[in-house]
């Protein structure tokens, strides 16, 4: 069996949004990345390592951030 390893550079973090993982620079205010990715914040909650956070937090190296959609309906 062949194992595939991916090592994330320390200066990079990822934001999962709309089913895709976006690489972003660490030590950047999250709100800047949110604006760059054009994420409508009031339709999402921000989760980092299973914890809810606010948009003014700094993105830390190696962070895996998930934008959780909160709008549903049929």
């Amino acid at each position, binding site marked *: 069996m062949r194992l595939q390893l991916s090592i994330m550079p320390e200066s990079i973090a990822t934001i999962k949004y709309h089913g895709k993982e976006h690489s972003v620079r660490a030590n950047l205010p999250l709100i800047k990345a949110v604006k760059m990715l054009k994420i409508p914040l*009031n339709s*999402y*909650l921000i*989760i980092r390592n299973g914890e*809810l956070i606010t948009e003014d937090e700094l993105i830390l190296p190696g962070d895996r951030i998930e934008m959780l959609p*909160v*709008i549903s*309906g*049929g």
Partner: protein
Amino acid sequence: MRCRTCGSKAVINMPQHHLALCKEHYLEWLPAQTQRDIVKFKMFERSDRILVAVSGGKDSLALWDLLWQLGYQTEGLYINLGIDSGIAYSQRSGEFAQAFASDRGLKLITIDLVSNYRETLPQMAARTQRGRGKPCSVCGLVKRHIINHVSVQGNYSVLATGHNLDDEAAILLANTLDWSLEHLSRSQPVLQAAPGFARKVKPFCRIYERESAAYSILRGITFMPDECPYAFGSKQLYFKTHLNDWEGKMPGVKLRFYTNYLEALDAGAFPARQESIAKLGTQRCPSCGQPTTTGGQCAFCLLVNKS
């Protein structure tokens, strides 16, 4: 960002309320807001037996958890609609609802559409003109009938649903665009009990969908993460997306839209409501006995008896 109450790190920012809160104080704030609306709109009291309609999703489970936390007498109702779409949607949703109830020692009533009516919801919808390809309106009809049947048969004094502000604002926008006066008269936090109907309440009517989702996450509620496969492309999602776009530019616009509507309702802007309830009270479906606006069988019985 700091919690307004204690100054520790905030977990949620709510520009519409000019408020950021930490986990501890958010989990105090949301139940207090909901309790305030329960009292304000005279939804129910401690003596009421409340049936909570749950889907296994974040809003209805958040509501049930919150009412349970507040000490109200609640039981849950889950309807297995038999929606599969390759992701076992209904089955998994029911498992989330059951796990929630079991963890808290609460009673969950499950109604299985196939066991009771020999068809799944998509099969029922496929036989009708309005449900073919898009079963949402048939789904609404089926759920309303079953929920009403269970609430009346079980002698529950109140039926609570997890409709939140985003749901109400989206429906209100759709009905306003259509100038549907009859529908506009019914989008209110409480529909009083009538012969054959339990009182229907929406305790989250002024709670943003984002706020109820945050409550579920902070309370550690595990809920069905997937959207109903038939919801994609729905009008409701379309209206919600646009309302949220406006909300981003004008924080609080959804809340003002809904609360100002309630004030207009109170001022008598939509008088059709009482007429419509009065009409319902006088006619019964000869097949199921539920109130109906038509002279013969109700829409639900016409649907299931055609199979």
